[in-house]
C-alpha cells in the first residue's frame, strides 16, 4: 500500500460535483501517477475545469474520495506543494510581468529564477500585463503557477490561443518539468496535443470516457488522428 501511495499523486474515487442544476462530474474515478505528464482532454463543458478546481481544493460541493499527495484535497499543507493556473489569466493587469511573478514567488517563499525565460517572456519583463496580448497574459499566468517549482502543477488550458511553435515549446517545457520529478495535470480541448502526454484522461459530459496512454489510444482505435480516436472511443463505450 505504501508503495502505491508514493506513486500516486492524485486518487479520485466516485467523484461527484453538482454546480446548481447541472451535475458537472458524475462519478469519476482515476489515479494520476507521480512524476508524469497527464493530459485532461474533452470538449468544452465536459467537466475539465471542475475536476482541476476540485483537485486544487477550490471547488465547493465535491462528493466522493479525493486524495492529493496523500492528503485530502484542499488540505492547508497542500498549498505549499501546488501550482494552479486558472482558465482565465488570473494575474494582476496593473502590475508588470516581473512584479506579478515576484509576488507569487514571495507567497511560496521562493525565488523567481528563470521562469520568465522558460515561458518565453524575458523580453516583456517590465511591461504592464494590461498591455500584453492574450497569449502573453496566459504565459504570465503560467509563470505564476510554475514559480517556486511546486510538486503538483494543475494547469487549466495553458496553451489555448497560442501559436503552434509556442505550444510545442511549452509542451516541451511540461515534459522537462515531469522529467525533473513534478506531477502535471494539464487540460486542453485540442486533442492533437494528447501526443505530448504520458497519460490521458478523457472526459465527456462529466463522465470518464477512458484513462490510457497515447499509444494505447492509438492501438485501441486504430488511428493516429486524435480527433478521430476520441470519436471512436466514445462509439466503443
Amino acid at each position, binding site marked *: 500500500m505504501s508503495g502505491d501511495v508514493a506513486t500516486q499523486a492524485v486518487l479520485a474515487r466516485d467523484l461527484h460535483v453538482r*454546480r*446548481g442544476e447541472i451535475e458537472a462530474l458524475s462519478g469519476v474515478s482515476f489515479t494520476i501517477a507521480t512524476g508524469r505528464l497527464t493530459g485532461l482532454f474533452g470538449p468544452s463543458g465536459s467537466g475539465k475545469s471542475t475536476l482541476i478546481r476540485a483537485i*486544487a*481544493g*477550490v*471547488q*465547493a*460541493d465535491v462528493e466522493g474520495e479525493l486524495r492529493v499527495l496523500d492528503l485530502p484535497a*484542499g488540505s492547508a499543507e497542500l*498549498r*505549499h506543494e*501546488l501550482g*494552479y*493556473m*486558472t*482558465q*482565465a*489569466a*488570473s*494575474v*494582476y*493587469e*496593473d*502590475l*508588470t510581468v516581473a*512584479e506579478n511573478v515576484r*509576488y*507569487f514567488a*514571495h*507567497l*511560496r*517563499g521562493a525565488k523567481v529564477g528563470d521562469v520568465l525565460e522558460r515561458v518565453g517572456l524575458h523580453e516583456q519583463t517590465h511591461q*504592464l500585463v494590461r498591455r500584453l496580448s492574450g497569449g502573453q497574459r496566459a504565459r504570465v499566468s503560467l509563470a*505564476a503557477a510554475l514559480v517556486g517549482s511546486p510538486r503538483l502543477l494543475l494547469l487549466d488550458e495553458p496553451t489555448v490561443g497560442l501559436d503552434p511553435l509556442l505550444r510545442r515549446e511549452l509542451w516541451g517545457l511540461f515534459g522537462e518539468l515531469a522529467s525533473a520529478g513534478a506531477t502535471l495535470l494539464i487540460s486542453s480541448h485540442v486533442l492533437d496535443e494528447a501526443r505530448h502526454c504520458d497519460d490521458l484522461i478523457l472526459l465527456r459530459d462529466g463522465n470518464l470516457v477512458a484513462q490510457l496512454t497515447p499509444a494505447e489510444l492509438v492501438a485501441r482505435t486504430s488511428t493516429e488522428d486524435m480527433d478521430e480516436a476520441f470519436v471512436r472511443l466514445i462509439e466503443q463505450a
Partner: protein
Amino acid sequence: MRGSAARTLATARRVLLQLRHDPRTVVLMIVVPCVLETLLRLIYAHRRVAFDHAGAPLLAIFPLTTVFLVTSIALLRERTSGTLERLLTTPLGRLELLIGYALAFGLLAAAQAIVASALTLGPLGLHVRGSDGLVVVLAVSVALLGMGLGLLASAFARSEFQVVQFLPATILPQLLLCGLLVARAQMPAGLHALSDALPMSYAVDGMKHLTSEATPVAALWGDIAIVLAFAAGALLLGAGTLRRRTP
C-alpha cells in the same frame, strides 16, 4: 511565523505597487480633500467657528470614502478576475491577505491625512486643541473601517457598477446621521439611537473632541476604540466572505 509576515508584507507591497502604476488615482486621493477643505474655508470666509465645526469632521470622512472605494473595487477585481481563487491555493492565509491590504491602505490613508491636515490646520487655520498627530491616528482608524465596509460591499456586488452604488447606500446615510448637519443630541430619539449604531458617528465625534472646548481631548480615544471595534467587526465578517471553495 516568519513566512506569515513575509507573505503579509509581500501582499502590502503588491497592493502599493498596483497603486504606483495608477498615479492619477493616488493624486486624486491626496488632492481632492485639500480642494474640498479650501472650498469650505472660502464658503465660511467670515465664519471661523462654522469652519471648525464642518472642516474637522470632513478630515475623518475623506479616508472613509476613499478607502471604501479602493477596497471595494480592488477586492471585487480579486474575486472576479480569478486572482483570489489562485491566491487561496497558495500558502497565503485569508487574514494575511487582509492585513496586507490594511497595511497598504492604512499607509495611503495616513499620507492623505498628513497632507490634508497640514493644509487644513496650517494655512486654512482650522483650530485643533490636541496634537496634530491625533488627526492622523483617527484618520487611519477610519480608513480601516472604510476597508472593512468596502470588503463587505465587494462580497455583495457582481460588477463595478454595483459596487460603486454601495458607496451612497452605506456612506451617505451615515453622513446624514453622524452629527455633521444636526448635532446628534438634538435628533429625535429614534434617529439618535440609529446614529449611535453607525460607526461614522464616532469618527465625527472624535474629530469634535479635538476641536470643541466642551469635552476633554482624551475622550477621543474612546471614539477611536469604537471605530476600531467596528472596523474589526466588518473585517472579520468580510473575511468570512472570502470563501476558499466556491460553486
